[in-house]
């Protein structure tokens, strides 16, 4: 059989197809079954979507390259679970397009960052990390507090996300830009409309400390505060398996 290659090498087209066939085996075996195996993505009822402000924050997170130094994936390793919390489940990044699991940790993992620190801390930390963590090597992102959030195209972002499977309603897409205001301005009319669309449990706060302006800081802090909080399933699973600790 080992001599048969001479025949194949003399037929260029057949050789090309043979290469494509062999090279695709790895992909087919590793990726295709993820779409057919039932337990790949857990089914949970309380999984919620990112709000428009959080999507905007996520876009800033991507723009500034935060994923280059921060992962969002707690692996099934004892030290990671003890330090960061329950290991990440696939469903938690169900609405992440693209996912931001990352593979490098110059800074800590952020998968369970939501509500660990206050908004004030995030703002102070993003303006100058060394003000609150003297040993930090993270760059300063002070301009986020100065830049107004560009939100007029949020409906297009939501519409694109719906195309890849995020269940936004027509109403959510239509009011996307308005809802970014609503989430960052408590006790206002847009805030009430926002809460009606996204549920009473959504965070409505002046994330950057200034309810008068909608800044990129608002968006990024809103996003950071929801990390690991789109669903409770990881916590529930952890408390079931350790007997309620």
């Amino acid at each position, binding site marked *: 059989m*080992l001599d048969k290659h001479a025949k194949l090498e003399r037929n260029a087209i057949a050789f090309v197809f043979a290469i494509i066939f062999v090279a695709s085996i790895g992909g087919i075996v590793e990726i295709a079954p993820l779409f057919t*195996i039932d337990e790949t993505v857990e089914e949970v009822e309380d999984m919620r979507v990112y709000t428009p402000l959080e999507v905007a924050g996520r876009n800033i997170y991507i723009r500034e390259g935060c994923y280059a130094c921060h992962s969002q994936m707690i692996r099934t390793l004892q030290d990671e*679970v*003890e330090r960061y919390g329950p*290991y990440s489940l696939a469903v938690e990044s169900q609405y992440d397009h693209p996912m931001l699991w990352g593979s490098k940790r110059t800074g800590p993992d952020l998968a369970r960052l939501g509500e660990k620190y206050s908004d004030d801390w995030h703002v102070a*930390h993003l303006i100058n990390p060394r003000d609150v963590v003297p040993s930090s090597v993270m760059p300063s992102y002070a301009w986020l507090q100065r830049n107004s959030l560009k939100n007029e195209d949020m409906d297009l972002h939501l519409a694109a996300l719906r195309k890849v499977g995020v269940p936004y309603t027509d109403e959510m897409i239509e009011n996307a830009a308005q809802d970014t205001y609503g989430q960052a301005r408590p006790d206002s009319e847009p805030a009430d409309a926002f809460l009606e669309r996204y549920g009473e449990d959504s965070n409505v706060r002046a994330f950057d400390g200034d309810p008068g302006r909608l800044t990129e800081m608002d968006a990024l802090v809103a996003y950071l505060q929801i990390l690991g909080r789109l669903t409770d399933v990881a916590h529930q699973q952890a408390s079931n398996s*350790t007997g309620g600790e």
Partner: protein
Amino acid sequence: MSKPERDPYTGLMTTGHEWNGIKELMTPVPRPVKFFLATTILLSVLLWILYPTWPYGPNYTKGVLGVDQRTIVEENLSRSAALRMVWEEKFTATDMSELEADDGAMTFVRSHGARLFEDNCSACHGLDASGGPGFPSLTDDQWLWGGDADTILETLRVGINTSHDETRYAEMLAFGDQGILDSTERRALTTYVISLSRPDELTEQQTEGLPVGQELFLDNCSSCHGDDGGGILDVGAPNLTDDFWIYGGDAESIAATLRHGRIGVMPYWEDRLSEADRRLLTLYIRDLGPKPQ
């Protein structure tokens, strides 16, 4: 195209190709390489049997060893939990005051508490717990909600102004932004608040205006901060008569606080830290402060 022929130097056959007189040997793959190739293929077959591998439709082969990373990490976690039980039991079952009097327990608190504090608290309160702008110091004897062990423990559990169902709640109203007091009134009030801790700093003119500020204070502030500005622990309102300030005690900072209000957040830790960890941290924080005489 020439015919394959035997190469006189190596004794091997050529491929039969010829380019400008250059011919190509058809050297067979060396035996050791073939051996290792065969071995790795055999090994992979063995691993298919032992470990989860082949997908089929809605499921996959689980392997005869039944290895699952989630089970492994759960086993590791319960093993380390069992190791911790040795001291956790003591810290959850014993009364806090008893633990504080126990030198052995406190030595443990100082070493383990420092690590817990660094991982969870130091981001806001600083490595030495002395706080910073917007984040209170934990090393003095001034407390917003009370400095006894049970109160600190509860603050750690539910936090302040958090999404926890039982959260402590305290808000300094935005007297300016909400249009409750105009700028003249706020200025008088700022002067009065300064007079509570540092009356020497005021000019004669300012001192003369103090009764106006005092009246405003009694009307607007005393329900939370007390008639004398000494603060009320039950509602988390700070003492204004001392020189401990969270957001700054200079005229400008006080004016900003009066105008925009403050809603300081202390995160809650019930989800993140065990009861034993929270008790350990409480003891650690109390140990940092001034010792009772």
